[in-house]
Structure formats: C-alpha cells, structure tokens
C-alpha cells in the first residue's frame, strides 16, 4: 500500500472527517492486528525462501528445503512481530495494519512515542494479545497495553507524522495500571 495513494485522499468521506483524532474502537484495531499478523507471516515466508535460496547457492547438490521446528518458527515470528511493531510505532506511530485501517498510536500528550516505549509496548502486545479485547469495554477504548503505557490509538487518516517527545521513555514508569 503506497503512501502516495493515501495522501491523495484529501476529501474524506462523510462520517469520517468528524471522527479523526478520536480513539479508535476494537474492530478497527483487531483488523489492524490481523493485517500485521499477515504481514509478519509474509515476512517469515520471505525469510524462509531467502534461507532456502542461500542454502541452494551454498550447496546445490545437498540442497534440501529447510525444516524449521515449531519453536523456531514461533520464536522467529515473535521476533519479527516485535521488531515490526516497535519500528512502526517509533517511526510513524503506526504499523502496516494500522496504516491500512487509518489508525495511529500516540502518547499521553498526543505525540509520537519513543523507541523504548514502542518496543516495550510491542513486547506486551505480543505477550498478551488478549489485552486488546479490553478496548471493547473500556470507557476510553483503551486496551490493557494502553492502560499500562498510557498510550492511545486514534483515527488518523492523514499522512502527517506527529512530533516526538523526549519524556516518552519515562511513560511506562508513570503509567497508571
């Protein structure tokens, strides 16, 4: 999905313009999570093919398709997912799935989160994905991770990148539970 295509959608459809900047609901966030998982799976598949190609180039006679175990695959998936989420939140405030769904992660004051906070939140999301379900019942559409790290996921279809704050790294220490 190209960013240029998104940037040309200057005219927002009816019902979407007035909801920009508000906290997003559980359905949109689950959709973004699913897209992120598909993206992680695609990355794992690409990594698998890359490994197989490397093996083929290294020894074509003894080439055999890699046979990773479940544990290896799971660990690789967790690592890829954490890195993908952390990188996305720390850079633009959104992952691939959140970009498709028009969501953005912001800090306490509505600014972009720092790398440490992003990494910690990514680990928390992978470790306890059901925490996202709490956004359906929360009065502020907040997941468990949002409550822990003081973050919010809002509707933001625009392509601008919110400014970062230097005190974002200390957010987990001050977040209420």
């Amino acid at each position: 999905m190209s960013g240029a295509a998104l940037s040309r959608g200057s005219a927002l459809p009816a019902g979407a313009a007035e909801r920009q900047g508000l906290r997003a609901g559980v359905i949109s966030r689950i959709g973004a999570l699913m897209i992120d998982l598909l993206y992680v799976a695609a990355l794992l598949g690409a990594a698998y093919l890359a490994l197989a190609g490397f093996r083929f180039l290294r020894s074509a006679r003894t080439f055999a398709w890699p046979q990773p175990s479940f544990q290896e695959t799971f660990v690789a998936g967790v690592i890829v997912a954490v890195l993908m989420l952390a990188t996305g939140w720390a850079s633009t405030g959104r992952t691939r799935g959140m970009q498709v769904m028009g969501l953005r992660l912001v800090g306490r004051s509505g600014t972009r989160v720092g790398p440490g906070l992003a990494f910690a939140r990514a680990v928390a999301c992978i470790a306890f994905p059901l925490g996202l379900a709490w956004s359906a019942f929360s009065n502020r559409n907040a997941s468990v991770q949002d409550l822990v790290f003081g973050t919010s996921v809002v509707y933001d279809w625009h392509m601008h990148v919110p400014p970062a704050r230097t005190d974002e790294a200390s957010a987990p220490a001050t977040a209420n539970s």
Partner: protein
Amino acid sequence: MADCDVAVHDVCMDRIPIGEQPDEPDNVVQLPTAGDVTEPADEEMSYEDAIAADADRLEDDASGETQPGSHIAGMMEQGVRVGAGLFAAGASALADALRTTIAHDEPEDDPDPAATLAGAGLGAAVTAAEAAAGAATKLADALGPAISWLVEPRFAKDAGEMAGGVVRVLDGQWKASQAEMVDAATSFLGALVPEITKGLAEQVDLTALVREQIDVDAIVADVDIDRILDRVDVDAIVSRVDMERVARSFPVEAVVERVDVNRAADRLDVDRVVARTDLQAVVDRLDLAAIAEEVIDEIDLPQLVRESSGIMANETIQTVRVQGMNADRLVSRLVDTVLRRQARDLVPPADGNPS
C-alpha cells in the same frame, strides 16, 4: 477624276461600274441655243392634223425642241441633273469611305458594293430628273404665253449660254475642290460629332432615359442565358484566375464573424452526413499504430496507470476504514447498552493534559 472631261452634269465616277461607258455620253442634256430654236411651220391644217402635230411636238420636247416651255424644262432638268450629280459626288465620296473599311484583298473583278450603291443612286437621280423634266415641260407649256419674254430666242440664247457657263464653272470648281472639301468636311465632322455626342451625353441622363423608356426586364427575359452559358468556357476563365491572390484578399475573418455558426450547426443533419460517409475508407487511411504511439507518448500512460491504481486502492482503503469505524461504533453502543453507560470518552489527551 482629274482627266475626266465630260459634260456639266456628267459626274465622273471612274470607280463606279455603271455598265459600259459610251464614248460619247448619251445622258448629257444639251442646253438649247438660239440657233436650235426653229419656228414651227405655220400652215393651214385640218383639226385632225393639228391634233397629230401637237402630239408630235410633245414627243419632240424631250429631244430639245425650241418651244418656249422646252427651254424652261431643259433648265429645270439641267438643275435636277446637276443636283443629282452633286448627290452622286457625295455618294462617290461615301463609296470611297466605305471601300476603305472593306478588306483590300478582294478580287478586282468582283463588283464593288459601294460603287454599285452609288451607281444606283445616280441612276435614280437621272430617272427622277427625266420625270421632273417631263413635268416641267407640261408646266412650261401652260405658262409659256405668260413668260414668253423669258424664252425669246435672243434672251434664251444668252440665258442658256450663261447658265451653261455657270454650270460648267461650278462643276469645274467642284471637281477641283472636291477632294479638299470632302477632307475638310470629314475633319470637321470628325471633330464635331464627338463634341456633339459628348454634349448630348452631358445634357441627357442616359441612365434615367434607359430606365424610363426601355423595358429591361423584357429584354432580359428574351435573353437565352443557357445558350450564353454554353458558349462560356468556365474552365478557361478559372484557369486565368490567380486563386492565391484572391484567397489572400478574401476577408475570411469578416465573413466568419458574420456567420452564425450555431444556427448553421442546428440546421445540419449530422446523422444524414454520417450515414453518407464511408467511415471504413477513412479508417483504412489512418495509421492507427502511429496515432496510438503518439497518444501514449503524450499522455504518459504508465503514470496514468499508476494514478488510476492509486485512486482505486485509496477508494478501497477508505471503504475498509469507514466499515471499521461503523463496526467500532456499533460494538461500542452494544457494550455501552449492556453496561448501561451513556457515552465514551473518545478524546485523547492533549499536550500536557493527560486524561
């Protein structure tokens, strides 16, 4: 004509072939002289003889009898013949003028039309003179007793000689100055006629005169336009026209400004025009491959495809997002309804104002 030596009334027309010219002119009227006058015999005769004698005398009057009336008749006949001679001289000049207008390569054996006309005029004049002489003789016979002193032998002789001399002198003067006078008259008329014509043209409104007196429509109606057009070589006329110069001087802009194109377009039956057009022939003449290549180069088709794909993707994404928003709102309302909650706080914390 200078070497022509004839009688007074004998107009020398060396260019006019009026039959064979006799050595001695037979149409010369000899003026009576005193010696020619003879007294008629005064003898006793019967009534019948007197009647016959009168008849003979009347017949002899034309041949120059010396009766008193015959002298006057001869003079009148001579005057008429002189007038006819002058007319013939004029006719000769006219014949010369006409001859100059005719081509000179005509054979000499052919009769000259102008000369023939002049000869005819001369013959008519002589005939008229003879008729006038007969009438004058009768008139003289009637008036003879009253004017007998005029025809006394002595007086008649003197008058005849004087008249003959005068006539000969006048004829000689005419012959001598004929060419000069004709030239003078010709020059005079040549200068006068144009002036008269010009003056008349200035005084008379010919245009109005033609409009009032001439039925132009009737004349035009009698004109066979088709016959005229058949005789016109339009191709030759067109070939002589400098179309380039005509096209340059043609006020195209002015004509276009005066043309109501929209009105003309409204009157145009496009369907009929298209139906009569051989579109297949037009398409066959088109280099579609070159046109397509040129169009692709002009519109930057790859960029267009990218933009189209982006627009389609953007519309798809917007649809998914809107559907997600609606689903979020539906779930929130459902949960809030179950939990008996009024509304959610969806406004995130602002800068320095955490919620």
